[in-house]
């Protein structure tokens, strides 16, 4: 108690700094990866991607990020054992933040495909086990989270597979693919707006005190879907047939129709990413703030102030603008094999899955779900060549990240405990 009273301000400042550092890393790394597919497919330029990211990442974090933030903040660790020494939880949260951010930095410089989500969860578990005790970890919840890490890419893959099949049936395998592409494009764009809105708004946004019944949610989602569709139709009208390109590759004009469609999935990817990964940085920050401002109340029954979500969004955007845009450039140039129609299906599948996970409060890895979605497209025989060694790399990175994050968090925790007492 006394520690919190004495060092409260410093601890909050540290929390904000570490939180910004972490979200900055997320923006520089993760978000660039999520948007890279749209850039690579030629749907948006890097500048446009940054613009989209700024708007939609924020929106995702504020509107849909509440549940995952809650999980990271108080869902994984059960602090009943330390109600008398709340500062331990504060140190732990700070340590976890720092550990995850440092691990992210190390991995990025080495080119390892690590997940920010896995890092922070591993770090939290690591601290909890040594700082409080193995019983303090909510192993049931952790089990659910780990299961979601395996299942979410599979779901993304399945949705992507089905979407690709539908585009084949409705557009590519028909007598007049271009006409059908223009005919069905509005429905696909409607799907983007509808699915994302429905998952986000279903039965209201609790942390923003917005109440909605199921029927109202559907209605609003349909409205938003129609709105996005209307905007989409405006873009699609502008697409002109290119007979020269069609000689080379019969579906060149059809792909041109899908290019503006990827604009919408780029927005949805940014939104989805914001809804899930911002929590990685601000969940611990929210915990620290809650404990300190409540004078040491470890159970964190206070509501999370919205400004913390804004801080998280800012950090991510800063990361994207400073470093992430270079990553997007490199990533974009390398992902040229994903044509707009494939990219659309993969991104819509990934965004939907991530938003669904965010709704249920499960922190997942956006990048890995996107990989799963792309694999789903590949399994539908829709892509030339996919190197499966990447999947092996990802699995290895899972196995390495959890202990690495945990160990670093343990080290930082003891360091902080030593400094502040």
């Amino acid at each position, binding site marked *: 108690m006394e520690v919190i009273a004495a060092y409260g301000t410093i601890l909050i400042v540290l929390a904000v700094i570490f939180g910004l550092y972490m979200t900055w890393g997320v923006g520089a*790394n993760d978000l*660039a*990866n999520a948007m*890279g*597919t749209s850039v690579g497919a030629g749907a948006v330029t890097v500048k446009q991607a940054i613009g989209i990211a700024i708007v939609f990442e924020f929106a995702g974090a504020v509107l849909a990020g509440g549940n995952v933030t809650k999980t990271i903040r108080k869902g994984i660790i059960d602090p009943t054992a330390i109600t008398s020494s709340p500062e331990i939880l504060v140190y732990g949260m700070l340590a976890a933040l720092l550990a995850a951010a440092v691990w992210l930095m190390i*991995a*990025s410089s080495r*080119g*390892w*495909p*690590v997940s920010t989500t896995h890092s922070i969860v591993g770090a939290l578990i690591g601290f909890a086990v040594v700082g409080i005790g193995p019983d303090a970890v909510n192993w049931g919840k952790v089990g659910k989270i780990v299961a979601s890490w395996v299942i979410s890419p599979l779901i993304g893959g399945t949705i992507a597979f089905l979407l*690709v099949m539908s585009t*084949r049936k409705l557009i*590519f*395998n*028909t*007598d007049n693919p271009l006409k059908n592409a223009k005919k069905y494009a509005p429905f696909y764009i409607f799907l983007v707006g509808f699915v994302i809105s429905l998952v986000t708004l279903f039965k209201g946004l609790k942390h923003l005190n917005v109440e909605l019944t199921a029927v109202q949610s559907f209605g609003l989602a349909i409205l938003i879907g129609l709105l996005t569709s209307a905007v989409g139709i405006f873009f699609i009208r502008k697409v002109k047939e290119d007979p020269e390109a069609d000689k080379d*590759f*019969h*579906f060149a004009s059809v792909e041109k129709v899908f290019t503006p469609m990827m604009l919408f999935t780029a927005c949805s990817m940014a939104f989805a990413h914001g809804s899930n990964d911002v929590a990685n940085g601000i969940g611990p920050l929210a915990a620290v703030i809650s404990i300190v401002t409540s004078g040491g109340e470890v159970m964190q029954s206070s509501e999370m102030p919205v400004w913390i979500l804004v801080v998280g969004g800012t950090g991510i955007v800063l990361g994207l603008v400073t470093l992430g845009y270079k*990553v997007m450039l*490199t*990533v974009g140039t*390398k*992902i040229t*094999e*994903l*044509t707009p*129609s494939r990219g659309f299906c993969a991104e819509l599948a990934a965004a939907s899955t991530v938003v669904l996970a965010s709704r249920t409060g499960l922190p997942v890895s956006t*990048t*890995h779900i*996107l*990989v799963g979605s*792309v*694999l789903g497209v*590949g*399994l*539908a*025989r*829709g*892509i*030339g*060549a*996919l*190197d*499966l*060694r*990447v*999947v*092996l*790399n*990802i699995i290895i990175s899972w196995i390495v990240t959890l202990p690495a994050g945990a160990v670093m968090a343990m080290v930082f925790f003891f360091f902080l405990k030593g400094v502040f007492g």
Partner: protein
Amino acid sequence: MAMQAPAKRDEVARNTGKPPGNSLSTAEKVAGWYPFIYGEKSMVAMSTNPLAGLLRKSPFKPIQQHMRTVYTCVELLPSLFDALHERDLEKVQQVSSQIATLESESDLIKSHYRHNMPKTLLLPVDRKDLLSLIHEQDALADSVEKISQILTMRDMVIPVAIKTGLDDLLRGTVEISHQALTMIEELDELVHVGFSGKEHDKVTRMITGVRKSEHNIDKVLRTVNRTLFGVEQELDPISVIFWYKIIEEIGDISDHAENMADRLLLFLSK
């Protein structure tokens, strides 16, 4: 097909950053065409984004580019025999060396392709089938080269009796090779629709067309061989043997084209 050369040169210039010109060796030209190895680093993705390493370059584009080179080679056959007919030995040499260059370019493309097909790739078709396909394509160019080699190592004279038959044979061979080329050009559309639907039917018709052409060429082959047999007593025996060999090699070209069609049928049926 001289018009292809400038486009290729531009591509090379773009990929290697060097100004176009004859200063590039064949290896450099091929390397410029196929940055098939992902980035500068080969195997594992060296970026934090697994997607960059996941999406490898299309394995179908190199096959298409290879076939275009092979077809350019086959197209030179009629002019080779024309030069021979006109007894223009210098031109024969010239065309032969063009053929040789094209054949070694296609060899390079093939081995570059083989080196970049690790077993860990998830492909929409069987990896072995792809490798067999490019092998068959390459065999086409090899046959053309063998023919030109015979015609340069010996000063041959076309027997009058088989001249028309030979012309028919050459025309048919170039035609079936063009059919095979058109078939291969459909590969990227096929991938796009997952080897199903209308594209599937279209390519199946092309395959049947190639089979028919091969059957017709077989008939012409028999006629030409029979004609040669009719006059072989009047000709120098060693030359006759080589003419039989040349006719056989020409026949092999359409056989390889048919084998290519068979491979494509495997893609469609799996």
